[in-house]
């Protein structure tokens, strides 16, 4: 039984050192290379002062060196913190301040971001910086203390580790409603139990060629990476720039001869609306998986008809319960395009519960709050007992066990399937990203020339899922334009959190309690969207 997630690579390296593990463009790393290089870097990390339980931040885009860095961190008995290198420095600084990494591993493309981040952090002591680029790196606020030439001199043999299955493998930061990202702690055991179930369920094998579509700070990438390593398959990393052109994504699937394609629904919708998928396309693809938000049924039907040789599986689950907690494999084409796709049944070792406000089960068919119990549950939020206590509750049926409150609403049907019915709060999903509208509102409220402002999520029928819509009133005597507001938000928020629709008002509508009437704002944006007739609105059959 595997105890630590890096052991998958060690096992493949022992039996099949020359098999390819990672592919990005022309770049390839075999299991043997990945094992030896990560052993070397792990030794260097330990010698640089990394102690068991320390954090190592990965300031690198999605590439083989970043995954190598993650493995080395684990082998040094530390937890890695993948950084979204497309995020602005002030937001990254909040994550660094919370994680307090001992070491930061940076590559040349992220050196400028690191410099800017170090200018914003409030860390008492600057972390040690290591370069994973070709040579040493230097910025205004840092100079790398080691680079690949240094770890090349270290022993490549197996590394002794002290960590066990209950130790933290990584911290994944997600949007926080008060403006500060929350770090979800994920244990080795959390990942091991999911990937062992999933690779068994999907029959993942050595000859598989698996997509690596989500970015590394997204928990779905954990399945791509460790599922691939468990099976000894090949992980084909999808460059983020391809997301701009659906035809390029389709070409990637074809030319990489992928057998598994796993992405967020907005990508499926984008590719369907722009006719990127041909009839009987992607002949090598056996499995198509999605997770992260609702996939519109017409888009699924489009894909199922165009790629009839593949199986289609919906995965559901928040980061706090590790990758996914339930699954539903389509038994065939949905009977109707208006039927939403169920989130299915719990994965092995996990349990889905629909409860009322007193934590009592609701009757079948009734809508309630969706909770998750079982092996996937994170120990909680990094250094935040309050938020942990609010979301991870004692299991009312079993003292000592816990249940996680997802914030999602759900109900069950007589066939035993669970159905997702939206959110109970103001968290939204846009292009697969989980976004707390409160984080955007917090950033807006820091702008002095705005009077009132509010952000609402509206389904405008576009491919992005929920559109982020901002209404604001300029402060008295000012005439601040949306482009200006957007520009300033961009300095503190990642692009995927920027509102795409704007409404400038003299004052925001209020409800009877004097609070901003978000329902009326939503109606305004819905009406506005309905009055437009964007091209490529419909999905071809």
């Amino acid at each position: 039984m595997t105890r630590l997630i890096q052991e998958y690579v060690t096992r493949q390296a022992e039996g099949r050192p020359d098999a390819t593990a990672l592919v990005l463009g022309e770049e390839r790393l075999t299991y043997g290379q990945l094992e030896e290089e990560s052993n070397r870097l792990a030794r260097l990390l330990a010698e640089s002062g990394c102690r068991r339980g320390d954090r190592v931040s990965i300031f690198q885009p999605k590439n083989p060196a970043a995954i190598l860095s993650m493995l080395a961190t684990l082998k040094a008995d530390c937890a890695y913190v993948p950084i979204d290198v497309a995020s602005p420095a002030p937001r990254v600084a909040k994550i660094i301040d919370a994680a307090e990494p001992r070491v930061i591993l940076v590559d040349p493309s992220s050196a400028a971001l690191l410099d800017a981040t170090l200018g914003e952090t409030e860390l008492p002591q600057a972390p040690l910086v290591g370069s994973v680029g070709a040579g040493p790196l230097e910025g205004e606020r840092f100079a790398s203390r080691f680079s690949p030439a240094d770890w090349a001199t270290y022993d490549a043999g197996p590394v002794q580790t002290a960590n066990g299955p209950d130790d933290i493998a990584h911290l994944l930061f997600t949007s926080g409603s008060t403006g500060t990202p929350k770090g979800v702690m994920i244990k080795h055991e959390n990942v091991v139990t999911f990937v062992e179930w999933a690779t068994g369920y999907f029959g993942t094998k050595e000859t598989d060629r698996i997509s690596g579509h989500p970015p590394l700070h997204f928990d779905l990438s954990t399945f791509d990476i460790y599922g691939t390593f468990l099976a000894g398959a090949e992980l084909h990393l999808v460059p983020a720039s391809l997301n701009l052109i659906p035809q390029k994504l389709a070409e990637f699937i074809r030319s990489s001869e992928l057998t598994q394609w796993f992405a967020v629904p907005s990508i499926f919708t984008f590719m369907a609306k722009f006719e990127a998928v041909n009839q009987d396309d992607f002949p090598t693809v056996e499995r198509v998986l999605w997770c992260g938000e609702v996939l519109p049924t017409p888009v699924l039907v489009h894909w199922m008809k165009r790629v009839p040789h593949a199986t289609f599986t919906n995965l559901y689950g928040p980061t706090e319960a590790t990758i996914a907690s339930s699954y539903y494999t389509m038994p065939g084409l949905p009977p109707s395009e208006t039927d939403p796709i169920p989130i299915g049944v719990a994965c092995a070792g996990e349990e889905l519960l629909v409860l009322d406000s007193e934590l009592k089960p609701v009757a079948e068919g009734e809508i309630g709050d969706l909770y998750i119990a079982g092996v996937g549950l994170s120990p909680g939020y990094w250094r935040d007992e309050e938020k942990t206590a609010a979301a991870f509750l004692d299991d009312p049926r079993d003292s000592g066990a816990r249940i996680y409150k997802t914030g999602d609403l759900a109900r069950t049907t007589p066939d035993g399937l669970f159905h997702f019915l939206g959110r109970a709060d103001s968290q939204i999903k846009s292009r697969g990203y989980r976004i707390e509208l409160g984080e955007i509102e917090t950033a807006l409220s820091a702008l002095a020339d705005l009077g009132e402002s509010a952000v609402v999520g509206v389904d405008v029928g576009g491919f992005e899922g929920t559109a982020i819509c901002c209404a604001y009133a300029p402060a008295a005597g000012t005439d601040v334009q949306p482009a200006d507001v957007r520009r300033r938000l961009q300095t503190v928020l990642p692009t995927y959190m920027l509102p795409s629709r704007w409404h400038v008002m003299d004052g925001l509508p209020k409800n009877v309690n004097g609070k901003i009437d978000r329902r009326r704002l939503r109606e305004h944006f819905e009406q506005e969207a309905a009055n437009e007739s964007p091209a490529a609105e419909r999905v071809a059959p």
Partner: protein
Amino acid sequence: MAGTEVSARVQRIFAETLNIEVPSDETDLIEAGYIDSLALVELLFALEREFSVSVPLDELEIDDFRNLQSISELVAAANGRPG
């Protein structure tokens, strides 16, 4: 259409339609995170409206909208094509 005129109109589309202020003609819109798939699709619709050209997504390269200058060149090329 003079190149500078196209460029100014493209810049205006960014500011007024997409609500994106681009610092300069050479700013790398993709690397700097100004354009994502959503903004790109809106941009293409806006270019088609503004310049009465057809810019099919399946004929595009990522470098075509790397910066304001390359977008202006794209529009100029689309303009020169028989419709």
